[in-house]
């Protein structure tokens, strides 16, 4: 199905990719901002509160108020901080989050209408960079994103920051092996690293979803994904109750905001990967398929908030113990059994 489609598609030009990049940046930044609103609302409802209510109807314009606050706040750089690294660190987090999104299918293909001057008639692809090692690229970029908290914590001359970056290192060492090994089994089944191939492999309805063949890998990937995006059971980096704000202690204004845009963009990326790799991606063609995947992404996003409202978080040593002594052996066993089944 996809092969015939690809032949009929127009040529992807540099202009189309640039337009796509601008669209991803604009929409995903806005979505990340809106994600903070959704998070506050969902957490509030789960604690029988109302959440933000005063800015706009039901507090919908709260993101505008937050944005104005973040942009107008003083950008403080501490006296003894390593200034260059302190300034670069949040950019690393935000940039890698968006670079990871360049290899992920977001929004359908479309052609800019002819009546628009200069860019009329340009074909805008679904994936900004349709590389054949998509999954590896995305996971690698998200892993590189953890350099942001690591460098931020170490450069700011603050002991809470140091603890935060030490925890970043622990987290990085723990989950990365599980992410890679858990997604290896589906890769072996599909025999490709491209998101398009994963999507095609599962195009025969719900029964062909990889979650039924690889339930263990799905659970492991979800757990590792929570660790990768610093969500609650594993939000060790900046847990306010323990380390003030961890790596973000000395940050204020838009530099702090960039960490959060990066975190929410990463949440969306993990949700997209989980939907495409395990839950069938775009089941149907056209608009319906996009509705399906948006529903799946929204479910994973909601799951992250839901878990945050429900579960306590664990200690750094427990995370390491859990990842190396429990999850990694299970992932290895899963790969082994998958390999035997494929061979036999």
């Amino acid at each position, binding site marked *: 199905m996809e092969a015939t489609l690809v032949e009929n598609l127009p040529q992807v030009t540099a202009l189309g990719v640039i337009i796509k990049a601008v669209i991803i940046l604009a929409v995903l930044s806005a979505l990340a901002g809106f994600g903070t609103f959704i998070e506050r609302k*969902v957490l509030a409802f789960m604690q*029988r509160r*109302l959440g933000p209510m005063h800015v706009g109807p039901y507090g919908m314009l709260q993101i505008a108020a937050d944005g104005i606050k973040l942009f107008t706040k003083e950008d403080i750089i501490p006296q003894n901080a390593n200034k260059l690294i302190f300034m670069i660190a949040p950019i690393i987090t935000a940039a890698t989050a968006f670079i990871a999104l360049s290899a992920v299918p977001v929004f359908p293909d479309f052609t800019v209408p002819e009546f628009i001057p200069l860019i009329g008639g340009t074909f805008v692809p679904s994936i900004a960079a349709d590389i054949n090692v998509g999954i590896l690229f995305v996971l690698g970029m998200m892993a590189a994103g953890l350099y942001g908290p690591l460098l931020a914590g170490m450069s700011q001359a603050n002991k809470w920051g140091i603890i935060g970056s030490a925890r970043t290192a622990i987290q990085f060492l723990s989950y990365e092996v599980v992410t890679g090994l858990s997604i290896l089994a589906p890769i072996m089944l599909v025999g490709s690293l491209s998101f398009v191939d994963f999507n095609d492999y599962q195009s025969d309805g719900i029964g062909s979803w990889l979650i039924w063949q690889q339930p263990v890998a799905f659970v492991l990937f979800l757990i590792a994904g929570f660790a990768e995006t610093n969500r609650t059971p594993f939000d060790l980096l900046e847990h306010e109750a323990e380390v003030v704000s961890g790596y973000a202690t000395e940050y204020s204004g838009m530099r702090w905001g960039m960490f959060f845009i990066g975190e929410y963009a990463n949440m969306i990326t993990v949700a997209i990967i989980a939907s495409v790799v395990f839950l069938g991606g775009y089941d149907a063609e056209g608009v319906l398929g996009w509705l399906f995947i948006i529903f799946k992404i929204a479910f994973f996003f909601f799951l992250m908030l*839901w878990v945050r409202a429900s*579960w306590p978080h664990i200690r750094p040593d427990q995370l390491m113990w859990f990842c190396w002594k429990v999850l990694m052996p299970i992932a290895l066993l899963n790969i082994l059994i998958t390999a035997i089944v494929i061979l036999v």
Partner: protein
Amino acid sequence: MSLEQFKDRNVGTQNYITMDTGKTPEGSMCKFKQVVKRTFKGELFVGLWVTMKAMLKALFANDMHTVKYPFEKLPISPRYRAIHDMLRLLESGNYRCIGCGLCEKICISNCISMDTRYDEEQRKEVSEYTINFGRCIFCGYCAEVCPELAIVHGPRYENAAEQRAGFSLFEDMLTPIDKLNLQQEYDGFGAISPNADENIKKTPLAY
């Protein structure tokens, strides 16, 4: 939240559940068994269900606990002691205070100051009555001692004022004459008990 729930201050009558944490496992086999048991018991999903239930109840069963304070207020206890009110007689509209001075006498922080005189019909009238709310400790003795239920504690607990004298003049505390029909009887300190009629006994005449 209903008034009954709000007034329930009896700690211990609520449904607290003691958690059964079980025994600490001894030996590696026992530890392994515990890990396996906890892994497949699905306790994490119980936690998820608890929050989901709370959310559904909050959204659809009107179980939201937020009170949007300046717009909504929680009911306060009838025994609450806020800024004083001076009540009027319902029949004539005159103020109930007879100028006996008991409240001034009993006030332990010496904040009530009153002056009386005889009017042209030789009845006692209150010429001046102020409470210094900077000194008042809201103990409720004045309301308790008042023989006429004239000075009582009202429900006005938002007592920020631009001047020291805010709320404290007799006219400020007195029920406005056009709102006499809205005047509430006070149930708190010094009020007549609900079964007051049953407690009345005839004075024995013969000994």
